[in-house]
Structures are given as structure tokens and as C-alpha cells.
């Protein structure tokens, strides 16, 4: 589907053992990640966004297991890696991760400098002095002023935004091919969020890495992503370029997600909320997982899982609405007018998401 995939996921299934019950967190996902592009994975809490990306670095919790599927990266199937020793060649070195909360991502009693240099020494085999030199460069790159002095400081002497910059510096220390940003700005305040997003964007150009964003924040998505993958109940239910998802989405869940954006709500109307709750993944999901919550569900939605319907070369969705036999439905008004309203909002100047 995409050219030149750097990472290719095939039929991935992940299960967790939770108190003698089995939870299927990822239900048969196949997805290619194009090199140097930014892919945003969106979806509500519990939809499996984080679990999905954790499989790329073998970071599933101890009770989780990939039961099926392949992940191809640099000509090898990562699922063949059996122990931590093998994963250490990938983690940090090839695929790096930035976590949500910079407040807790750093060891509170080790110096910032140590925590950066440590990775450089480990993966590049450099000496302490060389590592320090490189660490200082990285610190400058991520916008830390006076790095010489701050090198020997501890995380508690840094603000939240500064710490996230350090976390990014550590993630980039070994020039990874892929950077997974697991909600990198959720714990930060709005002004800092924009700075961090800009920083990741700039660094992606400089270091030429592929970025995978996990986020709830559609504002961030609109601003940085090339492609968007919408996840629901352990599946990607719609995938497309950012424009296709925002202006020509096809899945009722995507519509619901976009309609719930406070920034995009219609004036005078009550803010939209998707009714109901996601299905329990302890039981097998029958048909379309979103059907019970959808306003557009048909009989078949409760019987048979929808296949993938291609809309364009880059855009596909998993909904029976795209079947030629399905009745023609119009997306809600909010979605139909979204394009125009977004243009209105942004034409005053500035970039959406950086407001």
C-alpha cells in the first residue's frame, strides 16, 4: 500500500493474560510504515495504540504475548527475536521511544548527563569523554541552554518541558531509524506542547527518522502527521493521509472522533460525545466492534467483520458502509463542514495546533 516501507506489520495479534482470563489487545493488524513519514495513531484509551507500538521494541508487559503475526524491519522479522539480548540491538539503537510523562521517565538520582551518555556508550561503544561531547551536542540540539552546566544536574532541577527535551535527546542519541512518541505532550502544558512538537518535527528532518505518534490530540495530528491510523478495539479501522482522514473520513468511528473535538464543535450546539463504551476485549468481538455504538450500523455489522475497503491508493477503511450493497449515508454535518471551518480557523494566521 505504501512505497518503501521501513517497518511492516503483518497480521499482528497480541494477547494478555489477566487473572486467568485472556484479553486480545491487538486483533489482526497489518500496516506498513513509510520511511521518513510521520504516522499518527489515534484512538481512545484502551484501543491498543501503545500495545501496538510496544511490540516493535519487544516492550510488552510480562503478561503480554504476540500470538500471531510478523513485524518486518530491515529485512528481518522482529518476532524471531526471543530474548532481551536480541532486543537490545533494536531498542534505543534502531527504534527509540519517547514516553508520555517526562517527570518519571528519568531516573531521579542520576545526573542528566549520565543518563544521556549511558546510551551513547552502550550503543556506540564510545568512551566517557566522547560520549559527553556528543551528549552536550545533543543537549544543544534539543534546545538546552548552557549544556555544560546542566550536564551534571539532576532531573528535579529541570522543568517538565526541559525533561521531555532530554528524553528526546536520549531517544535520538543513537540516531534511530524510527522514533515512537507515545503521547509525548500529554503531560505538558499547552505552550510547551507546541514547542516539543516543533522540536520533534525539526529533528525528524535533520536526523531523517520515521516518526510514529500515539496521541489523543487530533490537533497534534493535523499539524504533524503525514498519515493517520485510527484505532478502535485493537484494530486499525481507518487509515489514510491526514487530509483524507480529516476531510474525507469514511468510518463512523472516525466521524465520531472528529465530531468530539471541542475546537471543531458547532457554535450553539451541544458538544458531541460517542455514546456507549468500547467492547470488552476479553470476549471475542463479533462483526464490527463499533456497531453497538454507531448510528449507522446495519444488520451485517453485528454478524460479520467488515473487510478492508480501499478508497484511494493511500486511504482504506473497515466498514460495511463502503460495500457497494450498503445504503448511501451522509456523514454528520459537523464532518461535512469540517474542511471549511478548519480553513476559517487557520486563515487568521498561525498553524493549527500551535495556537
Amino acid at each position, binding site marked *: 500500500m505504501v512505497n518503501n516501507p521501513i517497518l511492516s506489520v503483518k497480521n499482528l495479534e497480541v494477547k494478555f493474560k489477566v487473572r486467568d482470563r485472556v484479553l486480545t489487545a491487538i486483533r489482526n493488524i497489518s500496516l506498513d510504515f513509510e520511511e521518513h513519514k510521520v504516522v499518527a495513531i489515534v484512538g481512545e484509551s484502551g484501543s491498543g495504540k501503545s500495545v501496538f507500538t510496544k511490540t516493535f521494541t519487544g516492550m510488552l508487559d510480562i503478561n503480554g504475548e504476540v500470538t500471531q503475526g510478523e513485524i518486518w524491519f530491515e529485512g528481518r522479522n522482529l518476532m524471531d527475536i526471543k530474548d532481551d539480548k536480541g532486543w537490545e540491538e533494536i531498542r534505543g539503537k534502531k527504534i527509540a*521511544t519517547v514516553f508520555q*510523562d517526562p517527570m518519571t521517565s*528519568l531516573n531521579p538520582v542520576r545526573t542528566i548527563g549520565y543518563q544521556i551518555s549511558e546510551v551513547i556508550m*552502550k550503543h556506540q561503544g564510545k568512551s566517557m569523554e566522547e560520549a559527553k561531547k556528543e551528549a552536550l551536542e545533543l543537549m544543544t540540539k534539543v534546545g538546552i541552554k548552557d549544556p555544560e552546566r546542566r550536564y551534571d544536574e539532576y532531573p528535579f532541577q529541570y522543568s517538565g518541558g526541559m525533561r521531555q527535551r532530554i528524553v528526546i535527546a536520549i*531517544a535520538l542519541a*543513537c540516531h534511530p531509524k524510527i522514533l515512537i512518541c507515545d503521547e509525548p505532550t500529554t503531560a505538558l502544558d499547552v505552550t510547551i506542547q507546541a514547542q516539543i512538537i516543533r522540536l520533534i518535527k525539526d529533528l525528524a528532518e535533520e536526523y531523517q527518522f520515521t516518526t510514529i505518534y500515539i496521541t489523543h490530540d487530533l490537533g497534534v495530528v493535523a499539524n504533524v502527521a503525514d498519515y493517520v491510523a485510527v484505532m478502535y478495539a485493537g484494530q486499525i479501522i481507518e487509515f489514510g493521509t491526514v487530509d483524507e482522514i480529516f476531510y474525507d473520513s469514511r468510518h463512523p468511528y472516525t466521524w465520531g472522533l472528529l465530531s468530539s473535538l471541542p475546537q471543531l464543535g458547532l457554535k450553539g450546539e451541544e458538544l458531541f460525545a460517542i455514546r456507549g463504551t468500547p467492547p470488552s476485549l476479553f470476549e471475542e468481538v463479533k462483526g464490527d466492534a463499533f456497531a453497538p455504538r454507531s448510528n449507522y450500523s446495519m444488520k451485517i455489522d453485528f454478524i460479520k467483520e467488515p473487510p478492508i475497503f480501499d478508497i484511494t491508493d493511500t486511504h482504506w477503511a473497515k466498514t460495511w458502509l463502503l460495500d457497494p450493497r450498503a445504503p448511501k449515508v451522509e456523514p454528520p454535518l459537523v464532518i461535512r463542514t469540517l474542511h471549511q471551518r478548519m480553513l476559517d480557523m487557520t486563515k487568521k494566521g498561525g498553524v493549527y495546533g500551535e495556537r
Partner: protein
Amino acid sequence: MNKGYILKRLLRSAISVLIIMLIVFTLVYTLIPRNSIFSKDDGYRKLASKPDEKTEYMYNIWQKLGYLTFVRSADDFQELYEMGSPEMEEALKPGSKAAEEFKAKYEAQGYTVEKYPKSGRYYAYKDIPIIQHVAVWLSNLIEIDTPWSVKDENNPDLHRGISLGRTESGGLALIGSGTNHKHLIYSDSHFPWLHQNIIKLQFGESYPTYQGLDVMSVLFQSQGAEVKRPVTYATGKEAESGIIFGTETYKAVVDRMDKQKFTDNYASYQVQRDQPSMIGTSFIIGFFAMILSYLIGLPVGLLMARRKDKLADKLGMIYIIFIIAVPSLAYIYLFRYLATAAFDLPSVFTTYGAKDIRSWILPTISLALPSIAGLMLWTRRFVVDQMSQDYVKFAKAKGLSQKEIFNRHIFKNAFIPTAQGIPASLAACLAGAIITESIYAVGGMGKMLPNAIQQYNNVMIVALAFLFSTISVLSIIAGDIILTKVDPRISLTEKAGRS
């Protein structure tokens, strides 16, 4: 490090120790019936048939212990009449003019005046208020030796001054004259090699046990049989003796034997004995037990955390639960039984004595058993706690191996809360371990406080309360200082919140 903070902490500690001492004094000197202190005193028992002497003995002891001030009519009349003269005898009789004057005079001063049961002579006493008692005790607590310390009317020509010299054993010494100690500072071949006699803690004389010895000597002087060696005294006399040169103190009355050995009045001395002091014995056992428990407890606790819920963890848990659930008396006896059956080790300390290392092994291990369990439990807990932290996840995502994460990150973080407790466990060594010491018949500190309470040794109770509370307060401060060294987030300042 904030010096002001430490100073204030010390000041506050001093105040809390003072409050503790006030409470202890109140407990010991007002709530324990003062007649009970004689129950273990042989000297008192011998006076049972001599009521007058008994009364006088009791009041003298009470005066010495600081309960009251005591005046016999004879003391009061000493200036008026010659001792033993007929006038004196006349005055002492009850009903005489002088005696009645004595009664009136002291009653006016708030004294209680009573009669000896047999002779009917008067004596007066007045209780010392507890605050004053504490104040006097405190003012005598620190004794500084100066050339004017010795007040001996029979030796008016005593030279007063300080000079440099050597002890009889050849060590360099600061020699005082007119001082209580002949050698104010001296060096010799015994730990800690340099000794000082200028500042001494003075808790008073022990009573009714260890009579005649001051408390510090009871706790700090070596015990057992004198270790004799050939020595040459200042006079050139050669003899076998356990004398520790450097400990000579002033003796007002020098007898013929002393004159053969010493050229001056400094003829009182301490001797070397073959067992360490009580505090030393306890400290040696406690210190090595502590080292042992850290050497075993920390790595095993770490291992248990790494192998959580696996066999190693479960075995460790069984040990911990065993130690917690079984009374220490039981498992120490069990351990002793097993260890003496399996190895050639003595079941009591006294079999081979302090000189033989085998005597020390079982008490030390027995003492370490519970602290190993405690350290295992806490280390496991802290490590497990750290393992689920986000920074560990991030460290893993950085590509660090499990071993690197444990060694470089988790262990240091998990050790921080443990580090704070090290000074306290070191201090606890000084207090001794009553169960271990009594099972192995070790002459240590453990029994001191319970015994002192049982035997109504008020001086000892007060001294131990002071020593233990001071040491523990200081060790808590030391623990906090260590904490600031290992944890950069913590600094000791007056102001709360961020630095």
C-alpha cells in the same frame, strides 16, 4: 550542606535529650520508693541490728545520689565544740539547748528534723527538687581536667602546670600537674592509639551494684582477669603488672607500695584485662553482625526482587517469615544447637573467652539472623517498587540490559532508604542485644539496662538513658546527612519545599 540547619538540629536534639533526662529523673528519683535502692546492698543489710548507723548510712547514700541534703547535728556543732569532747556530747543529747537550737534553725530553713531511733540525736534533711537535681547532674556531666582540678589541702606545694613528656611505656604525652590525670593526652600501641583525659563524661558512682566504680569505668573498662606483663615503673622498679601507662590519676594518700612504683602522687591506675569492655564487646558483636547482615541481606533481597515469585524469592520469603514468626529465643537456641552440632564451635562465650575467635562466631551470626531477614524484606520491597517505575521502562526502551538497569539505576534508588538507617543500626550495636548475649553468656551491654532497673541502680539507669538517647538522636541526624549524600533531591534546609 547547610551548617545553620545542622546546628539547629543539634540544638533541638540537645533539648529533646534534656526533656528525656527530666522524665527519666522524675521516674527514677520520685516514683521509685527511695527505700528500695537498699534492697540489693549488702552493706546496708549488715547494719540491720544497728538502727542509728543504718539511718545514717541511708541518709548518706541518699545525699550522695542527690535525693536530699543531709545534716547531722554533730556536723553542725563541729565548729563550736571539739569532736568527742564532753561539751559536744552534751550538746548532742536530745533536749539540750544546742540541740533545740539546731532543730529550730534547720526547720526555719525548710528542713525536716528527725531523731536517730536509738540515741535520739537530731539530724535534718531537705529534699532536692527534681529540676535542681537534673541541673546539678548536668553541670557535673562534663568534667574538664585542668591544673587546678586537684584540691588537696595536705599537698599545698603541688606544682600546677602542663608540660610535654613521655609515658612510662614511651608514648608521647601531654603531662599535667595539679590535674586529676597525669597524662592529659598520650599515645600508645592500643586502639585508638591517641588517648585523651582532658574531657570526661562524669555520670557519678555506680550504686548499689559495681560499688565504688564510676559508671563510665563500668561500661568502658576491660573486663576479666588482669593481663600481666613485665613493666618498669618510674622508680625503676620492675614487676609483673597489667598497668596501662597513661591512665594514672591523682591519689591523695600514697602508701608504701605506691611509693615503690611512683615518684609522685599519681599512683592510681587502670589495668589491662583480657576481655573487652561491656560496650566494646557488644559493639564488636553488633558491628560484625551488621556488616554480615548488609553483605547478605542486600544482595539476597535484590536477587529475590529480580526473581520475583520464582523459587529464590519463595525460599527467601520462607526465611523472612520464619524469622518474623518464630520468637528470637527459639531460633537462636535452634541455631546454636545446629551450629554446635555441625562445627567445632563453643555454645557459650566463656568456654574459650574473648581471645579466641571461635567464641565470637555464633553470637555474631545469631545477632545477624533477624537483621538479614529485615534487610532482605526491605531491599526486596524497595527494588520491586523501583522496578515498576517509568524510568525503568524508559531505561529498557533505551536498550539497556536487565543487568545494566539493575546495577546502574534500580539498586542505587532502592538503596537510598536503606542508607538512611545505617547510622541507627551502628548506634544500636552499642546498646547490646540482651537475648543473644544472655544465651551465649557474653558480658555485653544488653543486660545493663534491665539489670540496672532490677537492682535499683539509679545512677546507671540515668547514665544509660542519657547515652542511648544522645547516640540515637545523633544517629538520626547522621542518617539524614547520609541521605543528602546519596539522594541529590534532598538537602537539609530550614525552608520547606524546593531549593
